């Protein structure tokens, strides 16, 4: 079998491995293409603390300047901070340098439009066309613009959050939080925000030096240290961020991860209690979110997977809260961006307002278990797999906007091809763990049979 390429150029940006496919030449061309696409305006550049970040940043700055753009370099910061700065400065766009949850050897460029959102499919295709055509705007040597180095972009972000949600109510017991930033972009700003809110913080993994103390994805199996620290310090809650601080996972006061699907559930529980309104998530989101929306009589819209689909629908529906089941909370009063900082602020307010523990809050609703599996599948076989599922499950409610989602009496499952690797992913959810496993096992077998 041929080697899986490590370079991925797609509508979600360009991603590759340092020392292999992600070369400075490629990066500087992409930045020129983006500078050309944005019409040589101001572009905000921020990065996560990966060891390759400085190299990538300079390749990007050279490309932007060459295409006539002006650069605002905000240094190491969460992705949502870049997005907020784009809007605050009325910039033409932004580039976030981060491979989010990918391991340390990866890096990537993510492109942000003047509205602070990631480029949508159409804009991203335009950018790719410019990149591939290779004809970039080049300004004369005497018209090259400058780089403005800005410190304090994260302080602006903290202030925006405090302004929107307020500090935690005084006069109540001070909440104690253990924060695991994975040595990522949230390492400095995370503890600062929690203190500004009025919580007591026990930080772990807050040295943003490019080392990965654990795999970056904030899924339960990676949160052993955090669970231990929550128990040891008798904390009210544990928060885990990923490398670029857009996703958030929660560990209960008992030191148990509640599953990253539940971050949005709790955030919505607080927001809808304050301000009822539409909720938007993707179609792979836990049914617990539907239960919360129902409790407040609010509509829930499910979109195709992809952050930009969620944010588009949120704007259309005038949503009050939205996000993704991977721990991405989007709170439009700050920005249309997945933002772990906002997530933490909302969950802490929920704890303070309700006076309940994380466990009690989660237990008010039926508990769902999500089981995920993936299997190797040559990309040309994916359409056949999806067709087979559509036929086999035609009697059940189907959603075919993104793979095939089938709603069964005991739960639901979703099968879709990855757009980054030659695999299919199977996700199933049910109120009982054994049922969820059964669904996955059954579908897995059907898919495997189809591929054979």
């Amino acid at each position: 079998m041929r080697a899986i390429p490590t370079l991925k150029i797609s509508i979600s940006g360009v991603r590759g491995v340092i020392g292999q496919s992600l070369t400075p030449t490629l990066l500087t061309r992409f930045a020129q293409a983006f500078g050309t696409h944005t019409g040589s305006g101001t572009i905000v550049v921020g990065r996560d603390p990966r060891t390759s970040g400085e190299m990538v940043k300079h390749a990007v700055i050279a490309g932007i300047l060459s295409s006539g753009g002006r650069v605002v370099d905000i240094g190491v910061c969460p992705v949502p901070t870049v997005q907020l700065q784009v809007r605050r400065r009325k910039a033409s766009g932004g580039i976030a340098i981060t491979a989010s949850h990918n391991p340390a050897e990866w890096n990537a460029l993510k492109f942000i439009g003047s509205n602070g959102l990631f480029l949508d499919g159409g804009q991203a295709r335009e950018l790719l066309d410019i990149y591939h055509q290779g004809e970039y705007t080049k300004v004369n040597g005497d018209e090259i613009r400058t780089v403005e180095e800005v410190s304090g972009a994260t302080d602006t972000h903290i202030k925006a959050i405090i302004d929107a949600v307020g500090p935690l109510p005084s006069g109540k017991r001070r909440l104690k939080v253990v924060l695991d930033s994975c040595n990522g972009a949230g390492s400095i700003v995370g503890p600062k925000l929690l203190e500004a809110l009025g919580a007591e913080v026990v930080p772990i993994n807050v040295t943003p030096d490019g080392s990965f103390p654990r795999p970056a994805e904030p899924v339960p199996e990676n949160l052993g240290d955090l669970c231990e620290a929550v128990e040891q310090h008798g904390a009210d809650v544990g928060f885990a961020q990923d490398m670029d601080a857009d996703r958030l996972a929660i560990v209960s006061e008992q030191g148990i991860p509640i599953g990253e699907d539940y971050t949005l559930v709790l955030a919505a529980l607080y927001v809808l209690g304050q301000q009822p309104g539409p909720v938007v998530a993707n179609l792979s989101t836990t049914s617990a979110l539907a239960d919360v929306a129902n409790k407040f009589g609010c509509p829930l819209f499910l979109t195709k997977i992809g952050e930009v689909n969620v944010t588009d629908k949120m704007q259309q529906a005038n949503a009050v809260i939205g996000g993704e089941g991977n721990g991405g909370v989007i709170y439009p009063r700050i920005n249309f961006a997945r933002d772990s900082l906002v997530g933490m602020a909302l969950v802490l307010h929920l704890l303070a307002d309700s006076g309940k523990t994380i466990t009690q809050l989660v237990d008010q609703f039926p508990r769902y278990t999500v089981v995920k599996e993936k299997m190797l599948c040559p990309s040309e076989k994916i359409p056949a797999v999806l067709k087979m599922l559509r036929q086999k499950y035609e009697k059940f409610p189907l959603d075919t906007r993104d793979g095939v989602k089938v709603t069964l009496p005991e739960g639901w499952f979703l099968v879709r091809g990855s757009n980054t690797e030659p695999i299919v992913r199977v996700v199933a959810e049910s109120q009982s763990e054994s049922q969820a496993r059964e669904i996955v096992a059954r579908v897995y077998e059907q898919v495997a049979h189809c591929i054979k």
Partner: protein
Amino acid sequence: MKPLKIGITGVRGIVGETFTPELAVEFAQAFGTYLDGGRILVCRDTRPSGPMIRSAVLAGLLAAGCEVVDLGICPTPSMQLAVKWLEADGGIAITAGHNPWRWNALKFVRGDGLYLNPTQAEELLDIFHQGEFLKANWTKIKSSIAYADPISKHIDALQKAFAVDVIRRRRLVVAVDCCNGACSLLSPRWLEVLGCEVLALNNDPAAPFPHAPEPKPATMAQLCAVVKAGHADVGFAHDADGERLGIVTDRGEPLSEEMTLALATEIRLRKRSGTVVTNISTTQAIDCIASQHGGNVLRTPVGQAYISEGLLESNGVLGGEGSGGVTVPEVHLTHDSAAAIGLILEHLAESDEKISTMVQRLPRLTTLKHDLPIEPHRLYSVLQEFRASVESEGLLFESIDGVKVTLPDGWVHVRASNTQSIIRIIVEAKERTKAAELLDWTRDRIRI
């Protein structure tokens, strides 16, 4: 055709046309590969494209696994000295020297602070063209850049080379035109250390070049006026990166750039005899001065790397070129306009002589320079045709760099520029009319 020169003096072109960030990235990565990683210094002059090229160079070096020390804006010779005290493996100067505002270039310096010699430069070009560069993985790549100030140490090195106390006592009045280039940060400071009353002009590194950054009489009108108005003992004019020096006398007369090395040779050989190293295109006045003082002259092809090599080889006492570049070996073996200033001021202080009277004593020759723009694909064939024509006339000529013909009343030199797509013609004779005849004679033999 748009100008881009990739050659043994580095890579040079117009930003916005041929000199792209990809090119700068890949040249830097090739240099990092050539040096097998290691510590590399980066500096730049004041051109507005400097930050863009700098970022491209930093990306290329980091990607190759280098440790990078950014010296910011500084004269190239300051970086060349810093290579030694920072124990670096090499350096990249981002400067197009005397070229206009829109140009930029990369110049490559090795671990001893000198430019790559022609063989080394060829090796670097081979790596660049092959396109297979070192690529550091995430554990090897350097995650940050270091910074250092090279100017103070440069002034320290200069102070050790000259009789600073003697110069200080004379309280010389010196006008200096920094052309808003990198010397804005060095030259006025150095003159103050020398106790001079400094009349600095165009010393704002954030401002554009007020005139071409090429010190020659045509660009020194403003400096002449300041020298006269301020009753200065001397006026100095810098290029963008601190290599070339132009001189205005105490009477406010601009000297030809050829006279900078002539004056330095007179000063140096009067004190200490030995070998002066210069290129074959530089004024014959150097030979006349050398023979007066019992010194001798070693001629090399045009280019700093050759002068440095010649000095190493001959253990020479002075080096330089007719473009205004002077090398004072006590400071280092590379052109350094601040060192040339030290040499000249030391002499003024010790001798109490005036520049204008010194100039009177120097041989009076007329040097004429003429540039012929040529399509890049014709550059070398034009040269070849000129050589054939000279050969067919049975004339004596030398061909270590272009074609230099010695005639009864003077000489002519025709060569391809290292940095631009032009043929440079230089002729020299005693009389101006004769020099003009030589220029016509040469042009008659060049068919574009």
